[in-house]
């Protein structure tokens, strides 16, 4: 199948890429754009490690075709920190010990961001329900919850 020329907007920048139709957004972001923050931990939509934001909504990039992500604003973890300043969620994750091996972190932070963007003061249950699609084997989610709650209160 021939490659097609597509244009993707990632973290506010436009990229022109030649991709085969079956290439997922995850593969293109990682292998063509060198943005390796989004990870594959399962490849079949159960773990959330590949989560990126498309027009602010969290989606699974391992099940999204790159060719179908045109015309949308894609945000990866690399796009969160602005001008060297970490996003409040990134700061909170570090401060509260919400990171151990770090493999689930990119997807977790992006999904958490989308939760807070929708609802700046979510309840504990709303956060946990929102993050149910991001698996973490290291932390038990305790410090992750603390970090998201801290970020939601505007603590810096």
């Amino acid at each position, binding site marked *: 199948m021939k490659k097609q020329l597509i244009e993707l907007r990632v973290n506010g920048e436009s990229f022109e890429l030649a991709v085969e139709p079956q290439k997922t957004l995850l593969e293109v972001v990682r292998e063509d754009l060198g943005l390796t923050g989004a990870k594959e931990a399962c490849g079949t939509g159960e773990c959330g490690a590949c989560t990126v934001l498309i027009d602010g909504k969290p989606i699974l990039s391992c099940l999204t075709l790159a060719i179908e992500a045109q015309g949308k604003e894609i945000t990866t973890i690399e796009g969160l920190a602005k001008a060297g300043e970490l996003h409040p969620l990134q700061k909170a994750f570090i401060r509260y010990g919400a990171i151990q091996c770090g493999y689930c972190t990119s997807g977790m932070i992006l999904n958490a961001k989308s939760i807070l963007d929708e609802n700046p003061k979510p309840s504990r249950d709303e956060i946990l329900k929102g993050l149910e699609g991001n698996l973490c*084997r290291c932390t038990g989610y305790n410090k992750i919850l603390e970090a998201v709650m801290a970020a939601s209160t505007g603590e810096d």
Partner: protein
Amino acid sequence: MEELSYVGKSVPRKDGVEKATGRALYTVDMVLPGMLWGKILRSPYPHAKILRIDASRAERLPGVKAVITGKDTLGIKHGFVETPRYPPDQYPLAMDRVRYIGEEVAAVAAIDEYVAEEALNLIQVDYEELPAVFDPEEAMKPEAPEIHPSHPKVKEPYKNIGGKTESGWGNVEKGFDESYLVREDRFEGQLRTHCYMEPQATLASFDLSGKLNVWTSSQGPFIKRAKLATTLGLPFSNVRVLKAYVGGAYGGKIDLFSHEFCASLLSIKVQRPVKIVCTREEVFESARHGQPIFVELKTGVKKDGTLVAQQIRVVNNSGAYRGSGVVVIFLCWGFVMLCYRIPNLKYKGYSIYTNNPVRAPQRGHGAPNLRFAVESQMDTMAEELGIDPVEIRLKNARQKGDILPNEDSVRNCGLVECIERAAEATRFKEIYGKRKSQEGQRIRRGIGMGVSSYFSGSLIYPNTSAAIVKLNDDGTVSLLTGALDIGQGAETILCQIVAEELGVSMDDIRVVAADTETTPVDIGAWISGGAYVSGNAVKMAASDARRQLFEVAAQELEANPEDLIAKNREISVKGIPGRSISFTQAVASSISKRRGNPIIGQGHFRTMKDMPAHPSLATTKGRWSDNYAFDAQVAEVDVDMETGQVKLVKATTAHDCGFPINPLLVEGQIDGQVSMAQGHALWEEVLMKEGKTLTTSFLDYKIPCAKDLVESHYIDVITERYEKDTPYRTKEVGEGYVSGMVAAIANAVYDATGVRVKTFPILPEKILMGLKEKGDKPR
């Protein structure tokens, strides 16, 4: 403890920013110019002879650069354990026989994964199927098919014995005769798996100078180097295993994996980098799972609950090769004798070959199954005797200063305090035993306690850790350590030690880690010695650097080295403000006035200094560890009596880790282990049918998600201290808290329902079945 600035503080992780911004590079993220993709061909049969492999069509496929099979290797075996008694038994690529579904038979390197996969389909393998056996008790029978000859030193009429451990003292028969109450039970642990988020992956690059560079998702580069070099026939110095960030391991990434070997050999063959990334399906089907163990436990106690005698038989299903099976049956003995004083003991453990994928350690490595058995039985006997669970444990718990049967000392044992404080903090005695008063309720609360212990560092290759602390011209510090951070925070705590010893800030220290060529040797992150062994090596190196700095500074400042203090990259004289020099000045002075010595501190540390090696796996003789961590954990559960569903509501961990170097990191370890215990006790199970793994995705094998979060409480029982100028004794925190918690959960379920489930996982239907047998009705 004197006032410390960094050790004992919840300093944020050193690698936090990298991980939070997506910049940390894991093996799966790495690319090299000219890189090829590799894939592995695996056996579809659980037991078969390989008659013939024809890879010619695969080799001719455009885009394929190399194909390897067993005949391309040196035929050198490897194994988790490599001792005279237990020599290595596994080829990195199958030679003439396959013994489990998924065993590696061939590997391909190609320009992309599509071509590599197509090539696998073109490799023709002719197998002759052999009879297979999957259950360990079946495999032991004389009529069972032979997977490997039984161990020659085991003189019992069983087949497929990979190894045996036998140990004991006193006279158990007499002990049982003298006991007031004797119980015999069988407890079964299920097959569970690690589910690290980063799949197994390796990038190998062989260059024309004869040097093999390897990045791999592991738990320690030095053991990987040794096994790769040996199986590839290369000198150790020609194999460099470099640091990659690791996305979790929990015991599943320790010994040599075929894909690591294959990526390396393929790279050697084509002289280009080769990367192999296992799919999650591959990981579920053919990577190493945990050891499923059943325990037959016979215990005798006095009327007041004091233990008199214990007889244990453990059978482990190690899979098709020995793996760590012969280690776990030794460890199970340890996990029985560590927590309670047992006057008479008889222990037998067998590790049995079956035609299943090879099993490996999984967080706790036998302790969860053992403590589940012992603690469940303790509660049962306590109830029969009319004693409460806290009381019976206090009666039998190890005390400070006890000498263990293997002559190790538990001089710093905090178990009694752990039990007391856990019971107090959870109001255990108030909540326990309220089954009758909850009759008629649909949701019932139960509370249970589990006690466990874990060793902190023992001897196994490479047996020692070393470190280098270099001062730079600007006064910053470089720490060179072979320690690998697999998420537990190794780099962070080692930096805290350097910061403490040298009086510099965490930001002043750059860590260079886990590179077999440039960093000194390290025991690795799998023998529970990170804080104790690697930490003390770094402490020694840092204090060596400080000593050298102070010698120079003493001259410059005309003071005694004992009167100097280091802080903020400056050395000053105690009590005399204004008299100081900076690290920069001291280093420059050292170079100019001390024959060019730029100040490099060295340190090393070995646990069990007076022992030549680890204890005998077969007889348990020999001292095992300098240091044992203890814990008492309490679980509170809510059980829906109509559906049998169990919710772990609250977990309390009273732990004696010596002292926490970084309390925040320790809490994280506790939380993670509580979460693993929850999955282990309540849902997780790898289902297999005749050697074929049925649960091959996260949909089939459930691990806890955010909604399963358990309220987690921590009680630190401090039994050690950190002092300058002497090695410190801190203990492990990474493995021991799964076992106490699974036992506590099982006991809590009994407290709520009156149903004693003796097999993991405690599925809802097991509870409902138990209730039915008792004639209990929810309403």
